[in-house]
């Protein structure tokens, strides 16, 4: 007679099947839930970004005007970023010059180095690299400062004294970022061109006259202006993302840390994506 007793393998198979089924069911149910939550979160975030941005831009044109705060931010975003801009500008110019010289020499076209470096810098590398470098330093600092003010109730204190915190904290930063980035880009391009000249003329023995002649041939004033407009937009973006992350900081020190990191990461990604779209559709 066949035994009707307990079979471990049978129990295991049935348990595994039940486990798998319930897991699959839960996973299937979780998909729309997760997507729904993500969609709601996305709409909320975009709404907050839109309102805060609109409020901050409108506040720039409303009294009381705050020239002292604006100049303080100009100094912080611009002057204090000068060393990093000089160093990276020099490095980028030298590297571009060296690599282009090597590549172009295979086509016997190394005389075009000056013009190509100038074109790349004016159109793309200058605005982008300057913005990414300043984003790393400035967006994190803005997020940390405003985030700390949020978690220590300093923003509530501003409100309690009838001071609009958006106008006081965010508007001067946006305006300063928008205004100073083109100047920082010009400094970046200038130093990069100087480094390029040193590498091409002093190290690789290119003719100095041809180097400059090709710059004039390749780069028009409109190319330079397009790059500067782009950098102004990047300046606005990095100041806004730093401010936004700081303004909506939650929690204590941990929240400030998260906001700081996110400001740099999100700022860099948004700058890169914007750069593509500006290049493709606008300028």
């Amino acid at each position, binding site marked *: 007679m066949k035994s009707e007793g307990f079979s471990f393998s049978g129990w295991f198979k049935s348990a595994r099947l039940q486990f798998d089924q319930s897991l699959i069911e839960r996973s299937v149910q979780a998909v729309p839930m997760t997507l729904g939550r993500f969609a709601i979160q996305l709409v909320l975030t975009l709404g907050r970004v839109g309102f805060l941005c609109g409020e901050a831009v409108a506040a720039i044109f409303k009294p*009381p005007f705050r020239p002292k705060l604006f100049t303080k931010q100009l100094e912080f975003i611009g002057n204090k970023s000068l060393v990093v801009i000089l160093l990276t500008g020099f490095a980028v110019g030298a590297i571009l010059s060296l690599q282009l010289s090597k590549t172009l020499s295979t086509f016997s076209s190394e005389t075009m180095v000056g013009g190509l470096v100038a074109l790349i810098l004016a159109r793309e590398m200058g605005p982008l690299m300057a913005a990414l470098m300043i984003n790393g330093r400035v967006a994190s600092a803005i997020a940390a*400062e405003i985030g*700390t*003010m949020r978690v*220590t*109730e*300093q923003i*509530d*204190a501003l*409100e*309690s*004294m*009838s*001071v*609009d915190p958006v106008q006081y904290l965010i508007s001067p930063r946006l305006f300063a970022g928008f205004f100073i980035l083109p100047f920082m880009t010009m400094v970046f391009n200038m130093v990069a061109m100087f480094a390029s000249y040193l590498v091409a003329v002093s190290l690789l023995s290119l003719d100095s006259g041809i180097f400059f002649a090709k710059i004039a041939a390749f780069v028009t004033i409109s190319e330079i202006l397009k790059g500067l407009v782009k950098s102004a937009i990047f300046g606005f973006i990095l100041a806004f993302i730093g401010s936004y992350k700081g303004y909506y900081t939650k929690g204590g020190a941990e929240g400030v840390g998260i906001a700081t990191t996110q400001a740099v990461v999100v700022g860099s990604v948004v700058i890169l994506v914007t750069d593509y779209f500006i290049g493709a559709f606008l300028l």
Partner: protein
Amino acid sequence: MIRFDNVSKTFGDFTVLNGVNLSFPKGKISVVIGRSGAGKSVILKHIMGFLQPDHGSVWIDGEDTSNWNTQRWRKNRKKFGMLFQDSALFDSMSVWENVAFPLLEHTDKSRDEIDEIVRKKLRMVGLVNAEDKNPSDLSGGMRKRVGLARAIALDPEVVLFDEPSSGLDPIVTTVIDGLVLETQKETGCTYVVISHDMASVYRIADKIAMIYDGKVVIDGTSAEVQSSTDPLVHQFTNGALEGPFNIYY
């Protein structure tokens, strides 16, 4: 005069205020007591307009604030001063700049006039020669004093205190209580204090209201609260373990 008329406020599933009726009379020190998380700070945030009631309304000087917009609230806040729990001093500014901040923002006074007011307010709270110090160089008690000087810088009609004695030792708490009494006497303005330090509450209060489970369980004078037979009030004011409070919340 500030009045809460059947005010309710819910955060998610948690009802913090559930039909609160309260009034804070002009020229008096009113204290709101209750356990941590009872909704005391939520009451202050409603008075400042940082939060809006889900039901009911907050009345300020006979006006229903339900329809006030941001600009109207900001206008009203010029008549208010607030001392925050951790003082909320601007750490990028000196003591002088902190106290001068509301004066620079809202008055056309000259630098000398502002300097005179700042020094006067700092003297009122017992701080001399601290103008150039940074908030990070000050002790908790000194920060509270600077916060109080800043709160009264514009000679407000109403000053709100969010737990003025939290984090302070008993001696400094007594000093701060003395300042609260002195400055109120000197300025004659309305003080609303949030606290759960009963010794301090009895020293300063003209009127005490206790919040429990989103409702006002007692609203009376110091003597009335001390002689109350309500088991909730008795347990809270005496800090007793036995009683109707769920201590493991």
